[in-house]
């Protein structure tokens, strides 16, 4: 409320100064625009609920502008308070949108949780139907110890050629991964995509990243906190076999999952 004290002297100044600035239609336009904005926020229950103070200030500033508009030489002040009124109205409108979106987000989050549970149950069921799930449980994740820490490899057959979507065959491995991450809440993973050397390097880089991202997305969908997941695409770099044979190329097309230590410390990227 920086202006409230200044009002009497402003009024005096405008009376005394008389012609400091002539009364211009521009100030009348600004006043009209402020009236329209204020009217809109005043009648919107959501805005009133989200930002009552800003609506009140918009009204006060508008009132000030209205009063000043009857004085000579106050065009600048009218425009000023009309501007402030419009700003307050716009701020109120933004806050109303923010809180409406927060409410929407809370509802969607519930919906997401519900779908997540359904999906998890459905996947479990499908895995159980497909094979001896319990036996599978006994077998640890197919990992290998490397200088980068524990690394798990998702092979080529889990993706169609040139595509980034995971095939249903990946469900079991991914579920085991999710389970492992639930049991080890401190651990984090880096998902690294790799390709063979067919095609352009840029396309392969893009594809490797998209595939790693697809695995990450599925983990997130199944409830793993995105903050625990890093995604990197390496394209044709770091092949594990020669690219000369079809077999070698298939080995090179892979997604590797690097696990952090128990404290969540991941090894450096390559």
């Amino acid at each position, binding site marked *: 409320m920086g202006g409230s004290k200044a009002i009497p002297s402003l009024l*005096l100044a405008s009376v005394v100064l008389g012609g400091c600035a002539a009364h211009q239609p521009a100030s009348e336009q600004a006043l009209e625009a402020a009236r329209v904005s204020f009217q809109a926020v005043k009648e919107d229950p959501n805005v009133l609920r989200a930002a009552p103070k800003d609506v009140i200030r918009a009204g006060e500033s508008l009132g000030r502008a209205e009063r000043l508009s009857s004085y000579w030489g106050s065009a600048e002040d009218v425009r000023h308070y009309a501007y402030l009124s419009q700003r307050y109205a716009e701020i109120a409108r933004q806050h109303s949108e923010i809180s409406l979106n*927060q409410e929407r987000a809370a509802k969607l989050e519930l919906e997401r949780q519900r779908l997540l549970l359904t999906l998890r149950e459905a996947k479990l069921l499908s895995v159980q139907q497909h094979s001896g799930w319990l036996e599978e449980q006994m077998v640890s994740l197919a990992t290998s110890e490397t200088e980068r820490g524990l690394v798990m490899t998702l092979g080529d057959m889990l993706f169609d050629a040139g595509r980034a979507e995971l095939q249903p065959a990946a469900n079991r491995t991914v579920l085991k991964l999710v389970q492992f991450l639930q049991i080890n809440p401190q651990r984090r993973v880096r998902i690294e995509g790799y390709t063979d050397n067919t095609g352009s390097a840029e396309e392969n880089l893009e594809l490797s990243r998209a595939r790693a991202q697809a695995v990450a997305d599925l983990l997130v969908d199944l409830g793993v906190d995105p903050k625990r997941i890093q995604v990197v695409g390496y394209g044709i770099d770091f092949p594990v076999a020669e690219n000369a044979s079809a077999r070698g190329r298939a080995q090179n097309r892979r997604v590797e999952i690097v696990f952090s230590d128990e404290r969540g410390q991941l090894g450096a990227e390559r």
Partner: protein
Amino acid sequence: MNRFLFVLLALGLTACASDPAPNEQLRLTEQALTQAKALGVDGEQSESLRLAEDKFVRAQAALQDGQNKEARLLAEQAELDARLAEAEHLNGKGREQLAELNHRISRLRQQLGAM
């Protein structure tokens, strides 16, 4: 008495610079600007923040020149411009969050549909 005061004031007023120096308002404006920037609003993206920064600089210059009223008007506007920049920024973040949630939900639906 009132009339006497009025005449006295009227005589005393020689220029638009008769307002007190709006130091408090400039402090408030600076605070609003700092807060907006701390939230990650930047002038590249936010027209409102650019306005606020520009007016704040002009308000400081006006204060230097003894144009106290000019300084106050600019600083008051700049404060609200900065607050609007902040609200717009938060609103944008909220919209992004909604879009992300919707995206995740549609992905979940897609996966459920594929089973």
